[in-house]
């Protein structure tokens, strides 16, 4: 295998896929550099899982070119399979086997040898906090444990590129944090990760680059910060102790969003120190007392809303 450090881990051009007459992917182009985390973000039905299924050789594409680890997925799927690991949305573990047996099964299928297989299984059980449950059937595992076992099974073969399709969907906040930690450790080890998620926070936490997928098309791509800069929507939130101060400030500033009950006022701002100082100076000059103040910079939620131009149905789910 000829490996050059500059070769992208994944490159996709003009990827198209339909199921029947339903167009699911409508010309996707993307590139993922080695050793980085790429997040594909979008609501349910945007085409995220279909993209992962094609990139991981599970299903074929209708058009376009897809290269993973330097190999064409259509022409040389086995070479791609040897380089990747996939943890899908639905747990891909054998529930009739124990956690340890699941890992040994993977080791056997990766042909790593009996002894090395046992060593890796033991190490992964320890690292994924499953050592105690290793001898129990996977059918008795909790959601978080299943997800960890699933990822551990993916790692048995030491893949250089890992696909994670909604790795934390349906997990409680603590299990989600644990998964994030595990993913960060993998990245530190030089692995390339292709992640799909409908949680903006997750993409923001983990990804070097984010692409927004909506109705089978990429509507934006960039670093989390670059995406956030693309839209206005920042503001300064002022909270007052008395209704009188709130009224006075609102009268003076004019263009602001007032919340009578919470005694707060949202003032549009670009978040710079200069504009903040100007605002405080004006309030001081009028002898209006502000109790607390917070600065809100736009998050990916705002980005998505701005770019799709419509309220995202999945926003309710975003934590």
């Amino acid at each position, binding site marked *: 295998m000829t490996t050059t450090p500059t070769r992208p881990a994944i490159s996709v051009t003009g990827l198209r896929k339909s199921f029947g007459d339903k167009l699911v992917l409508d010309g996707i182009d993307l590139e993922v550099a080695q050793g980085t985390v790429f997040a594909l973000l979008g609501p349910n039905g945007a085409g995220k899982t279909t993209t992962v299924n094609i990139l991981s050789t599970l299903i074929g594409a209708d058009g376009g070119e897809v290269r993973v680890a330097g190999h064409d997925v259509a022409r040389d799927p086995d070479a791609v399979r040897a380089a990747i690991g996939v943890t*899908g949305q639905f747990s891909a573990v054998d529930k009739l086997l124990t956690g340890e047996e699941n890992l040994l*099964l993977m080791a056997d*299928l990766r042909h790593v040898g009996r002894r090395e297989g046992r060593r890796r299984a033991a190490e992964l059980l320890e690292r994924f906090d499953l050592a105690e449950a290793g001898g129990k059937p996977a059918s008795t595992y909790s959601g978080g444990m299943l997800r960890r076992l699933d990822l551990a099974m993916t790692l048995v073969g030491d893949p250089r590129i890992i696909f994670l399709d909604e790795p934390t969907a349906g997990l409680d906040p603590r299990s989600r944090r644990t998964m994030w930690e595990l993913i960060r450790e993998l990245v530190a080890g030089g692995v390339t990760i292709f992640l799909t998620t409908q949680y903006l926070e997750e993409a923001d936490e983990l990804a070097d680059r984010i692409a927004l997928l909506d109705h089978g098309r990429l509507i934006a791509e960039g670093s989390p910060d670059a995406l956030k800069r693309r839209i206005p929507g920042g503001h300064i939130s002022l909270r007052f102790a008395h209704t009188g101060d709130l009224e006075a400030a609102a009268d003076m500033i004019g263009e602001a969003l007032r919340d009578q009950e919470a005694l707060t006022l949202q003032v549009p701002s670009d978040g710079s120190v200069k504009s903040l100082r100007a605002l405080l100076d004006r309030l001081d000059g009028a002898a209006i007392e502000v109790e607390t103040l917070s600065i809100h910079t736009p998050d990916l939620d705002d980005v998505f809303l701005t770019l799709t131009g419509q309220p995202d149905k999945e926003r309710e789910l975003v934590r």
Partner: protein
Amino acid sequence: MSTLTYAVADSATMLRRQLRHMQRYASMTVMLVGMPITFLLLFVYVFGGTLGAGLGPSGGRAEYVEYVVPGILLLAVTTGAFGPAISVAMDMTEGIVARFKTMAIFRPSVLTGHVLGSLIQTMHSLTVVTGVAVLIGFRPNATPVEWVAVAGVLAAITFALAWLCVAFGLVAKTVEAASNLPQPLVFLPFLGSGFVPTDSMPTWLRWFAEHQPFTPIMETVRGLLLGTAIGDSGVIAVAWCAAIALVGYVWAKRLYNRDPVG
């Protein structure tokens, strides 16, 4: 390692997985062996007196035991075939198959694991059924070579039906549907020479009974075990097994390689 070594190693791995499943899911194994034994006892002790009398002037329960065992053995083979249909359908509902498909392994190994597991399971169940038959008075006069031939013929039809039922398990949308598809197979030993001689049947049924695949297989097994005439049944039996195995294999492989929808 060469492709062939991978094929053997991966199939062996998948077979080990299947054997573990059978251990864990023991109720199915018990069901698969319990059903033919129940039918054996039912046909010998409840119907055996009357059916045996129909075999000829000297017929009776003891003669009927000899007559019915080949049919019961085939019944054990067909009940055994439910195993791969159900276990394949269960596999397809889990994400584990998607994982196998994205790994660089010998692709049909998941299916060969099911087939080989079913073969081992059914051969076990046939041994138990034969043991019970001997306990209740079955006295075959087969030589060791003939016993080996019986095992060979039964293994061949088990193997063939396992591939067919793997395809059933893949084509079914649910586990319930998969467990219904092999149902007609269970009736075939009855609609042949398994439980009564075909010449006692009405002409139209007799035509079917004599030309369906299980009759030559049962006649071959009966001839090998008891010394009755085999004639060309042996050749026809082997041909049927090969044909069913081929159709099952090609169909199963095609179903397995198709893209999942959605």
